[in-house]
C-alpha cells in the first residue's frame, strides 16, 4: 500500500514538473515556439610582431623622424598602442618630441618612429642600442 502511495506521489510531481513544457493542443499536434536570449562574448585577440631595425643619424640638429622598426598588428578590433624607448648611450645627446604610432590602430604594418629629435652637436659618433617597448591593449573589453 505504501509503495502504491509513493508511486502515485511520484507520478503527480512528475506531471507538475513537466507542465511548462507540455502543450496539450488540438488532436493531431501542436505548434510550440520557445524564445530566449544568450550572450556570446567574442573577446579581442591579437597577433603582433615588432621587428626592430637600424637607423642612421647623419647630421646634428633637428631631425623630423627616425624609424626604429616596424610593428605588425592583426586583431579582430582596433588596438591601443603606446610606445616608449630607452635611448641608452644616446640619452642626454638626443631630445625627442614624441613617438609614432601612439593611439588606436587597426590591422596593418606600421613604422615605429621617434619624432622631432634634436641631436646635440657633441654627440660622439658611434652605434647606439635603443630599446623600444610597445604596449598594446584591447579596445574591446568585457
Amino acid at each position, binding site marked *: 500500500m505504501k509503495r502504491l502511495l509513493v508511486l502515485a506521489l511520484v507520478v503527480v510531481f512528475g506531471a507538475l514538473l513537466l507542465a511548462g513544457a507540455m502543450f496539450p493542443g488540438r488532436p493531431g499536434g501542436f505548434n510550440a515556439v520557445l524564445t530566449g536570449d544568450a550572450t556570446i562574448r567574442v573577446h579581442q*585577440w591579437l597577433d603582433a610582431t615588432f621587428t626592430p631595425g637600424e637607423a642612421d643619424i647623419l647630421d646634428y640638429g633637428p631631425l623630423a623622424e627616425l624609424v626604429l622598426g616596424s610593428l605588425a598588428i592583426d586583431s579582430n578590433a582596433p588596438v591601443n598602442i603606446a610606445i616608449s624607448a630607452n635611448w641608452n648611450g644616446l640619452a642626454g645627446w638626443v631630445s625627442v618630441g614624441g613617438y609614432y604610432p601612439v593611439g588606436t590602430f587597426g590591422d596593418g604594418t606600421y613604422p615605429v618612429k621617434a619624432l622631432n629629435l634634436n641631436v646635440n652637436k657633441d654627440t660622439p659618433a658611434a652605434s647606439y642600442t635603443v630599446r623600444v617597448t610597445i604596449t598594446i591593449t584591447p579596445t574591446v573589453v568585457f
Partner: protein
Amino acid sequence: MRKILLVLLICSVGVLMMAGAAYTGNFNANLQGDSQVRVHQWLDVVLVERTNLVNIFNYETDYIQSPITNNEMAFIFVYESNAAVNLTVEYSLNPATDLLDVKWSLWRRIGFNWIRHYPALPNWANSGETTQLPHSLALGTEHWLGLSMKFNASKDLPAGTYKITYTLTFTPTVIF
C-alpha cells in the same frame, strides 16, 4: 593510430610557432626590441684666413709661413667634429718643378698660443702625408688649426711665378 599521432604533432607545433606573437582575450601585450641607431661622423670646417702670396728672394733659404717666424699661415681654419678626423695635405706646383722644395706642418691654436700638432718639431711633412685631428670636444672651445708651409729653392730654379694648388682632404675615422 599514426594519423591521430600526426594530427596531434601538427597541432603542437602550430601552437609553439604562434606562442610569441598571439594574444587571446583581455590581453596586455608588451613587445620589446632593440633598434640600432648609428650616429655618423659629421664635420664643420670654415676657412678663416689664407695667404695668397709667398716671396722667395734667395736660394737654399727657408721661407716659412708659421706663427713663430712671421705669425703667418698658409691656411687658418676652424673645425668641429664628433670624432677624430683624418687630414691629408696635398699640393702641386705649376709649372711642375723639383727645384722648389715644399713642406708643411700643422698647428693647433689653444687660447692665444699656437702649438705644433704635426709633425713633431723640428720635422716637416711632405705632400700626401696624413695626420689625425682629435675629436673637437677634446680641444675645448677653440678648434683653430693653421697650416704652415716651408719653401726652399735650389740655385737653379728659374725666376718666375709659380702656382701652388693645395688640397686638404678630411676623412672620418668612424665609418659604418
